[in-house]
């Protein structure tokens, strides 16, 4: 049996095959983890992002192997060409693969004797990268002057913090290494890692700009109170028994204006000038939607990914997706203007939204903890103050999430929570919710909010609101689960209306 030899051409072929396979898998796998049945077997399919990430790791390792191989080959070739050809010269003994020589170094990076493979480059690299790392760490302490330009510059280094630390370590190792080969290898590893990181970021950079956009649906809905129940009153009409043979003739049946419809207040939604023709929203466009909206824009439900393990409880199919479905059911004119799936984003993505097109509301759920870093808190603060966003907090368990969330919101808003009145517009439009519905009172039974400039920037539900949105509605009574949906719709509506007004006020 012939043994398999990994020749360079075969390795190149395998590398190419891997890249092709990886690309294919990324296309095939779903956006979210899912379960599939295959020939009686239950397969848990990981999400696309996970597959992509694993692929990048393997690609880095393949590139690393190729780099080492090519570097070794080139170095050997250069060293062998520099060996004296005279017969009477002393033999050169290789130590750890390194040929002893006293030739002057060149500028070729593949030559271990290159001039710049001395300790100086490593020391410079160490100090520069360590400074970058230290500056990024300093920016995590906002009490050192978060408003200063230097502090903002330091904060901008956060994404490259750990890369700088790795490079600093490599630089230090290069500086202290005594062998030229080791210095060359470490330098090349550092350069390769840097290059790979650059490629990675370029590949993940969106075309044109890395800013996300949340477009509101265009249209002209209204938020007039929706009837929770319609009181039907029987209208007693006078019946005329007409004798066709009678000498009396009727000129006409009773005019329609004389019929009193007797509608109650709850159903008397009146048209106002400029109001659109229905659906959720506000503005003077057609159908449901918002005046500042764009064609193709949709109402989306976005949740924030954070360190608590329960951040994704009730996420997606069978969970908060039901809220979006309920929105369409209750406002049929919003069909096509509401996203099909709910989404999850991290703090960095939230910070990357266009300043005037950030999501109107972001959901933050958790049971155990809520511990965003200083940078994350800055993102949240910027989101609610500068980008007019709103946070919907939901305590999903009896852990420390509730108190953590309150403390973080106090910090980022710079104010303290207050009880949200029962007759606040957020509880009245489009649905009247006279009492707060909840599944279990993890954090009491009163909704608290944080208000800035007359606007709710945080709504904190203390009792597992999203549990009621699940298919099983956590086993609670249907009427309470229905009210939980209505509350969710009210909060979405409030946030979108506020954001729409703000967007319109920002337009030139």
């Amino acid at each position, binding site marked *: 049996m012939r043994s398999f030899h990994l020749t360079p051409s075969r390795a190149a072929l395998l590398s190419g095959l891997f890249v092709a396979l990886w690309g294919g898998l990324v296309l095939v796998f779903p956006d979210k983890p899912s379960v599939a049945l295959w020939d009686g077997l239950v397969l848990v399919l990981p999400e696309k992002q996970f597959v992509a990430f694993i692929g990048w790791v393997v690609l880095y390792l393949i590139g690393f192997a190729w780099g080492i191989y090519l570097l070794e080959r080139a170095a050997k070739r250069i060293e062998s060409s520099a060996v004296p050809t005279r017969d009477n010269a002393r033999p050169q003994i290789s130590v750890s693969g390194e040929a002893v020589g006293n030739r002057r170094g060149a500028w070729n990076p593949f030559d271990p004797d290159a001039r710049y493979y001395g300790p100086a480059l490593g020391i410079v690299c160490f100090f520069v990268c360590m400074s970058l790392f230290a500056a990024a760490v300093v920016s995590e302490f906002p009490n050192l002057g978060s408003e200063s330009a230097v502090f903002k510059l330091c904060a901008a280094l956060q994404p490259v913090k750990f890369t700088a630390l790795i490079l600093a370590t490599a630089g230090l190792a290069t500086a202290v290494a005594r062998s030229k080969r080791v210095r060359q290898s470490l330098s090349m590893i550092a350069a390769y890692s840097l290059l790979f990181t650059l490629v990675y970021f370029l590949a993940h950079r969106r075309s044109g700009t890395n800013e996300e956009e949340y477009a509101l649906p265009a249209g002209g809905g209204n938020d007039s109170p929706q009837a929770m129940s319609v009181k039907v009153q029987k209208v007693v009409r006078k019946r005329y028994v007409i004798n066709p043979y009678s000498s009396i003739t009727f000129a006409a049946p009773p005019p329609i204006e004389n019929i009193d419809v007797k509608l109650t207040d709850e159903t008397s939604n009146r048209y106002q000038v400029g109001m659109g023709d229905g659906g959720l929203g506000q503005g003077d466009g057609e159908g449901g939607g918002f005046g500042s909206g764009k064609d193709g824009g949709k109402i989306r439900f976005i949740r924030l990914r954070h360190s608590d393990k329960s951040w994704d409880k009730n996420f997606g199919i069978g969970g908060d997706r039901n809220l979006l479905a309920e929105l369409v059911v209750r406002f049929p004119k919003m069909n096509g203007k509401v996203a099909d799936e709910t989404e999850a984003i991290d703090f960095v993505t939230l910070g990357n939204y266009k300043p005037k097109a950030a999501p109107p509301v972001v959901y933050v759920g958790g049971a155990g903890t809520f511990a965003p870093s200083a940078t994350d808190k800055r993102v949240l603060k910027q989101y609610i103050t500068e980008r007019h966003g709103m946070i919907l907090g939901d305590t999903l368990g009896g852990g420390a999430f509730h108190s953590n969330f309150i403390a973080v919101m106090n910090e980022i808003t710079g104010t303290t929570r207050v009880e949200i009145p029962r007759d606040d517009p957020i509880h009245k439009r489009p649905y009247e919710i006279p009492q707060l519905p909840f599944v*279990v009172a993890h954090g009491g039974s009163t909704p608290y909010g944080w208000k800035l400039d007359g606007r709710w920037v945080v709504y904190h539900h203390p009792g597992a609101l999203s549990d009621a949105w699940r298919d099983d509605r956590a086993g609670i009574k249907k009427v309470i689960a229905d009210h939980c949906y209505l509350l969710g719709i009210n909060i979405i509506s409030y946030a979108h209306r506020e954001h729409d007004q703000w967007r319109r006020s920002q337009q030139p």
Partner: protein
Amino acid sequence: MAPFATTLSAEEPLPPTPSPKKGGGACITPPPFLEEGVGGRGRLFFRIALVVLALGFCATLAPAGPLDEMSVERWAKLKEAERFQLNAAERLFRESQWKAAADEYEKFLKLYERSEGAAFAQLKWSHCQVNLRRQNAAIKDGYQSLLDYYPESPEAPIAGLLIGRTYRDIGDAKPAKKAYAKVIAAHPKHFAAVMSRLDLVELAAKENDTETYARLLRELTYDVERKGATTAPCVTASQQYARLTFRAGNFEEGLKALATSCSEAQLPHHLMHPSWGALPTIVGELTGSKDEPTKKNGEKLTDAGAAWFKTQVTANLKDPKTKPQAQAAWYDIAEIRRHAGQTDKQKAVYEDIIATLGPDDTTLGYLARWYKVHKQPELARTTYGRFKDVAEGQGQIALSYREETPPQTDKAVAIYRQLAADVKVAPRWLGEAAMAYRRGGKPDLAIAVYRELITSDAKGADAYAIEIAETLYQAQRWKECIAAYRGTNNFPTNYLHMATANRRLKQYDEAIALYRQVIAASPANASSALLQIAYTQEEAGKKEDAIKTLKQICDKHPKTSEGSTAHTRLNDVYKIPITLGGAKD
């Protein structure tokens, strides 16, 4: 917060809502003799006596201020039918039946729109809306309507103030400030204007507007005329201003501010009071700071405070009648030094007192405590030994033996036994001896002492029986403690402890039976007992039953912390999402 809280402080936590149930509303009850035109003289006197008693009771309980009461003179102006209707509403208000009370006030307004009590009814209707958490309705349909329809009524300035306060409570700072400014401009000398200023102080503190904060407090302290109802908020403001200036290291200004609210003789007490001048606390905060300038401010404040108290000592020592005041001022100096971390100077003060006035038990007690704090128990005991009240001194010596590590129980008990020789005070010292045995890990000896007490002090037999059971419980002698608890009457603690003991003995069914008895007899403890049943079932390996019980808690007690625990446990431990429950606030 309800709008009728009368005092507020920017630095202290807001006082709890003075519930009208506790008497706030009771104070405004009209004298019943006004309700009936004619009646028997005896009955009239009886009723007057009842009213006087009720008013006296109110005075002790209720902080009802001018924000929610109507004067007796105005009550007298009401017609009989009006009084009847308003009384009906007031009764419901006192019983916290906000919805029904609001309906009754509304009825009054519809029937007697031009009555003397109409503005008052409008005000109280608005209070009901606030309590129903319908603050927007309270502002727009209540307080504002009062201003529109009854602008000349005595309630109008109050309504203006409460508009601001309600806006503040729902987080709308801007309209709140606007409303306060209106009240201050329209009724500058009224109580409502003073309260508005005090509320603005709170808003300034919240917004870190130190300049406005200090300016308003200064105005309230020095400029506002203190008369009747305006006195209390000005006093509060002067105390806040004093604390503010102390924090800046300015003792003299703070003293001056406090002096506006009390007599010279009361000044030391006001300075030292933790909620008024709070000098020791502030000294501790400043000197404990890591910031060097702040620390220096603290030291400056300490020295200034101590120097002022020293002048009090010198002045009071001249007259033998004021010697106790001099001694009190000395103790205050020591307290300030203690908070500043200047313990040597603190000790020097005690020694100074003893040298000047001779040893007395109070000063010796302070000195001995100083020795104890500084780990010199022998010197502390020697000092206690100098007490004129020998029994008290010996008791303290015994206590110091108990406090040592490890506790010297036998020495302590020997002293207690000696003290118990006096039959009159024997129960106290024997009780201490038993406690010393318990802390020293000698439960049998403690129980023996309690048994001795049961025979010698029959009056306290029940309490001693409980102590015996508690001793056994703490010693984890479960079987004996169950038997001991059976003879006690401190339900439900005894049942809960018996249940715990049964669980430790793995007698799960008995434990559950006991918890069920607690549920049946004490509804207040039902949810916690149910949760304990679930835990017991888990310990017994009956997971299905535990799940059922946890679901039962979620279903029946969704508003309690036990409901939350059960929900989380079902989610996290059993991975069960369907937990039942659901409720409305």
